[in-house]
């Protein structure tokens, strides 16, 4: 009995010691704060102009060689074009196809000014250091012009601040507003203390032309004492027609094909 008890105690002690030494969670270590070291990753060749390590160079050259070989082996054999008979007169269908091909060919000279992107090199060429003073004088006007142009030319790259509720960017919205502002002749005699909101629903084609326009509160036009509303509503429809076609963003048609314009003359008439 005594013997078995002592063996059990011994066994437990050994097991406990083993646990203390080997298991990591039993041993509590003090938390030491680690120092953060910022590391900038740079290309050695950019800063030091040092050659790559000879081993690395070998590997790179080997890969390059393999790639070149692959390109050569994968290249399709040159197509054998049958010689045209000198006597052969081209059929009318063939002539037509030929002409079409010529038209669809991209001609960099024909790229419209608005779509054309100026490269940094071209910009440098345009720069004349002798005309700095003139450039400074016109800088304000130019930035204003550029901003105006940007508002009118709706491109996807203009502004990335997409209004998630609307599906178009704020600058695109501003550009549409600017177009309508010019077309809307506000009737000046309207009672500005009344509700002067006219909601017009537009359905647009992909090119920005108006498929249909509808006054949402149409019933109000014929209500007694709402003669001013009729005048206002008609002015908004004229504005929409005068602005047809609208300059809309080049992409995202699904987002703007249905448009609601909320015309409110109150602010302008109250002064």
């Amino acid at each position: 009995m005594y013997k078995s008890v002592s063996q059990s105690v011994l066994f437990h002690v050994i097991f406990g010691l083993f646990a203390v030494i080997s298991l990591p969670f039993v041993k509590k270590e003090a938390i030491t704060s680690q120092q953060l070291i910022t590391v900038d990753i740079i290309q050695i060749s950019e800063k030091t102009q040092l050659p790559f390590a000879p081993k690395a160079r070998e590997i790179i050259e080997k890969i390059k060689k393999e790639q070149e070989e692959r390109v050569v082996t994968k290249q399709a054999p040159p197509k054998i074009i049958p010689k045209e008979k000198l006597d052969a007169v081209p059929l009318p269908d063939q002539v037509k196809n030929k002409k079409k091909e010529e038209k669809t060919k991209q001609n960099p000279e024909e790229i419209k000014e608005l779509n054309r992107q100026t490269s940094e090199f071209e910009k440098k060429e345009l720069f004349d250091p002798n005309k700095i003073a003139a450039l400074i004088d016109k800088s304000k006007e130019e930035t204003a012009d550029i901003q105006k142009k940007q508002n009118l030319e709706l491109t996807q790259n203009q502004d990335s601040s997409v209004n998630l509720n609307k599906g178009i960017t704020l600058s695109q919205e501003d550009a549409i507003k600017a177009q309508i502002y010019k077309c809307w002749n506000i009737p000046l005699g309207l009672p500005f203390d009344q509700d002067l909101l006219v909601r017009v629903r537009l359905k647009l084609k992909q090119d920005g032309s108006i498929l249909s326009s509808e006054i949402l509160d149409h019933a109000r036009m014929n209500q007694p004492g709402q003669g001013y509303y009729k005048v206002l509503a008609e002015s908004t429809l004229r504005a929409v027609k005068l602005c047809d076609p609208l300059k809309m963003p080049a992409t995202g048609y699904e987002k703007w094909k249905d448009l609601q314009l909320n015309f409110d003359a109150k602010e302008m008439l109250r002064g």
Partner: protein
Amino acid sequence: MKNFFITFFSILFFSQASFALVKIDITRGNLEPLPTAVSKFYIEDPSKFSEELKKLNLEKKISETISNNLKRSGLFYIIDPKSYIQSPNIAHVKPTFQDWALIKAQIMVSGKLVIDEQKRLRVEFRLWDVVGGKEIEGLALFATPQSWRRIAHIISDKIYERMTGESGYFDTRIIYVAESGPKDQRVKKLAIMDQDGSNNKYLTLGNELVLTPRFSPTAQMITYMSYFKNLPRVYLLNIETGLQEVVGDFPGMTFAPRFSPDGKKIIMSFAKDGNSDIYTMDLSSRVVEQLTTHPSIDTSPSYSSDGKYITFNSDRSGSQQIYVMRSDGSNVNRISFGEGLYGTPVWSPRGDLIAFTKIFKGNFYIGVMRSDGSGERLLTQNFYQEAPSWSPNGRVLIFYREKKSGKSGTGGESSLWSIDLTGYNERKINTPTDASDPAWSGLLSK
């Protein structure tokens, strides 16, 4: 079960897509005058008396008068008739809107003239929405050929109303004091004319000095002040009959009479023992009621359009300022607090604004403020100008302006001017002689 989930998720997806409507608030617009084409009216040939009409050249006169009215309002830009492509008779029946859109017209006016066997003139006009491609107004009017000018004014009013949303002011008249002769022997006569300065007529001979004529709301009656035996009195004059009567024989001096909006009372200031107060007189019973009792000079009273309030000027605060009180004389409140002196307040027929004359640093201004004194706006400034009077739609003010007198006796001419509430459309109204104290009538054709 699978189908149910497909249907459920597809409805969810497509319903979200349909709610993605782009809404844009348009809170600004163009305040430029509306491009308008007024096609020359034409005479319908089959008419028996059409030759007679052609001699009068009424088709040209009517369309020119309409053009001038609209142009003077400052809200319409009349496109040069030389650029019109379509002939007047076709334009009146079946206009080609593309032709009118080509010259940038947004609206077009056309009309025809017919004279019947009773020699009555029938003028038919149509207003076309060029952009919308439809007729938006049409009217036929009968009158004697001599009344062609009134017809042109009524048509102008219809166009104005249809395009601006408020009533016009072209079929109205202006009464004023016509002045002639040297400064020390000035002859002042009552004169009346159309709002555009045409049809000028004199109502008095000029034997007595006349001042501050004002129309009654019915436009048949005028009240004015005249000196008789060096004593100022308030008179009533019926324009149609020419009958004139003294409103009352007061022991003191009476000034600045004006009708109440219902035309039943006259409100005026009455000076007695060096103190001037506001009084009203019932025209049917001739009962006089004193409204102010302050020992200061209260004058130039004017009713609000609903007749519930009166505005006047008083020096009770130490300087001449504008006040508003209830029509029974209670609850007097000062509303002008700017620098300078304020006088001749007149309540707008729309009820929203009070026009006034302001004197500040030797200059005279015509301005407007809200009836609580807020939103003061000075519309025009000059060496000497005063006495604003509202057009019936409350959009335009007429007043008179005097030039500086030279040492040699030159200058000092007075003339009538109008200005709209924007302050930009200021125009001189031509009169045969010097003119002062203008007052605008209500619409003749209500």
